[in-house]
C-alpha cells in the first residue's frame, strides 16, 4: 500500500495539520518510505493470535464513583492563550 498526494492532504486534514502545497511531495515520499518499512509485518503468521491490549496482565482498577478532585477552574485555564471568566475562548463555531 502506498499513499498519493490526495491521501497526504486527506491525512493532514484528519490530523488537523495544515499541509502546504509545497510540502505534499516530501510527506508523500517519507510516508511511503515508512509504510514500505512496516510492510514486512504482513509476512508474519498471526492466525489465532490475539492482538495485545495490555502489556502487563492486569484488569483496569475501578474506584468509588465520587468526586476526588477539582474546584479550581482558574488553574485549569491558567495556561490558555485566551480566556474569559474561566472559559476557554475560541473563534465563533455556531452562527
Amino acid at each position, binding site marked *: *500500500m502506498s*499513499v498519493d498526494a490526495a*491521501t*497526504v492532504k486527506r*491525512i*493532514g*486534514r*484528519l*490530523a*488537523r*495539520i*495544515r*499541509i*502546504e502545497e509545497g510540502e505534499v511531495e516530501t*510527506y508523500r515520499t*517519507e*510516508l511511503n*518510505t*515508512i*509504510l514500505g*518499512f*512496516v*510492510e*514486512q*509485518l*504482513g509476512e*508474519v503468521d*498471526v492466525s489465532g*493470535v*490475539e*492482538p*495485545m*491490549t*495490555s*502489556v*502487563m496482565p*492486569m484488569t*483496569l*482498577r475501578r*474506584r468509588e464513583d465520587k468526586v476526588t478532585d477539582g474546584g*479550581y477552574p482558574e*488553574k*485549569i485555564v*491558567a*495556561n*490558555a*492563550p*485566551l480566556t474569559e471568566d474561566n472559559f*476557554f475562548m*475560541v*473563534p*465563533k*463555531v455556531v452562527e
Partner: protein
Amino acid sequence: MTDLTRLTLAAARAGLKAKEFTSSELTGAYLNAIEGGNSKLNAYVAVTGERAQAQARASDARLAAGQGGPLEGIPLGIKDLFATKGVHTQAASHILDAFKPEYESSVTSNLWRDGAVMLGKLNMDEFAMGSSNETSYYGPVINPWRANNSNAQLVPGGSSGGSAAAVSAWLCAAATATDTGGSIRQPAALTGTVGIKPTYGRCSRWGVVAFASSLDQAGPIARTVEDAAIMMTSMSGFDPKDSTSVDLAVPDFAAAVERGVKGLVIGIPREYRMDGMPAEIEALWQQGIAWLKAEGATVRDISLPHTKYALPAYYIVAPAEASSNLARYDGVKYGLRDTGKDITDLYELTRADGFGREVKRRIMIGTYVLSAGYYDAYYVQAQKVRTLIKRDFEIVFNDGVDAVLTPATPSAAFGIGDEDMKADPVKMYLNDVFTVTVNMAGLPGIAVPAGKDGAGLPLGLQLIGKPFDEETLFAAGRVIERSAGIDFSPDKWW
C-alpha cells in the same frame, strides 16, 4: 577541595551525611558547572538556580539535624517531559511555549519527597520522538564525548539526550529520563552512562507528557549502576493516578547491586546478530559473555524469532498512540496559538506551526494507520505481532533464563546532521533496533557502558530482565561495569 561534581551520587550522599560538605556547596558546584558548560553542550533548556539553592538550604537544615531522605541534598536534572509545578515543561516543543503546569508529576514528587534538589529541565527530542536529540525545538544537545583526535560534534543519542549528556559531563549527579523505544538506553550507551528502563507499570506515568502510553516508562540515567539503583528506588512506586501503575512493593534496588551473577542463566539471542553489525559490537558482546561466565553465570544460546518485526510493529503502534495523545495540542488549552479564520483553521495552523517535522511525520503515519479501511491491516496486525514478541520472551524465561544479554546500540555516537539519516527517516529509526523489543514486551532493560570503539567512543551492553526483576539487571549490570573497569569520563573540552 576536590571537584564535588565528579563524585558519584552514592559518594556525594555519603559526603553529605558525614558533613564533609553541604548540599549548598554541592548544588553551587553543579550550578557553576552548568553556567560554564551549558552554552556549549545545550543539555539544559531551563536552569532553576534559585529554587535549587532554596532546596539545598532546606536539605542542609535537615542533614544538620541528622534527618533527611535517601536523596537528601542531591542535585538532579529533570527531563523536560516531566511536569514540574510552575517550571518550564514543554517536551522541547514549540507548541507548548510558555507552559508552566499547575501540578507536579508523581515521579518528581517522589524525588522531592526523598530530599532531592532540582537544577533545571533537560533538553530532549521533541515529544521524545527521535534518537539523536536533533528534533528538539531548542536545538541539538552536543555529546561530551568526541572521537580521538577530532573536534567533530557528535549526538548524545535520544530522546533523553540532555539527560545523558548532563550526567556524563558532570552537570548533575543523576537525571530522570523516559524510554518509549530506547530513549533511556540508547543515549546512555552513546555517552558512557548507565540507563535503565524499568518494567512497564513500575514508575508512574502521571504528569509525564504522553507520547505512546502503552510503551512510555520513566527511569534514571546515572554515572554508575549503584547510582541508577538508588535513583530507581526513589522514582518507583504505586500511584492510583496512573491506571497502569502496578501495586507492588518497591525493593531497595541498591541492595541488589553487589549480588553477583553466580548461578544465573544468561540468554544470548541469535536474532540480535544483525547483518552488517560492526565487528567491534560483536567483540564487545563476546567480551560481555566472557565476563558473566567468569563470575559464575551459565550462558545459553536462545532464539527470539520475532525480533526483526519489533521495529516495524513499533512504527505502527507508537505513531498511532502519539496521533491520539497529541490531539490535545490545539491552540486552545495551553501553549502556542495561531490566528485562524475559523476553529478548524486555528487548529490546523497552530499544529502546523507548533510541531516539528518528525512529530508531524509520526502524527501523519499514526492518523493513516488508524484511519477507516487501514486499521486492521496495520494497527491490529502490529498488535498481534506485539503479542508474539512478548511470547518469545515468556518462552525463554519459562525455560529458566534469568536475563538476556545483547548489544545496546548498533554503533557508537554519530555526527550531528548525519546526511544519510536526514534523507531516510528509517535509518534513524534503526538506532533502536536492539532496545525497542523491550518496550514492546513491557520488560525492564538496562544499558551499561562496557567498552570503547576504535575511535575511543563508549559502547554499551544491554541486559533484559523478567517483569519486575530489575534487581537481577542491577546485579548483572554491576558485574559488567566492574569487569570492564573502564573510567568513562570524557575529556573536558566545554
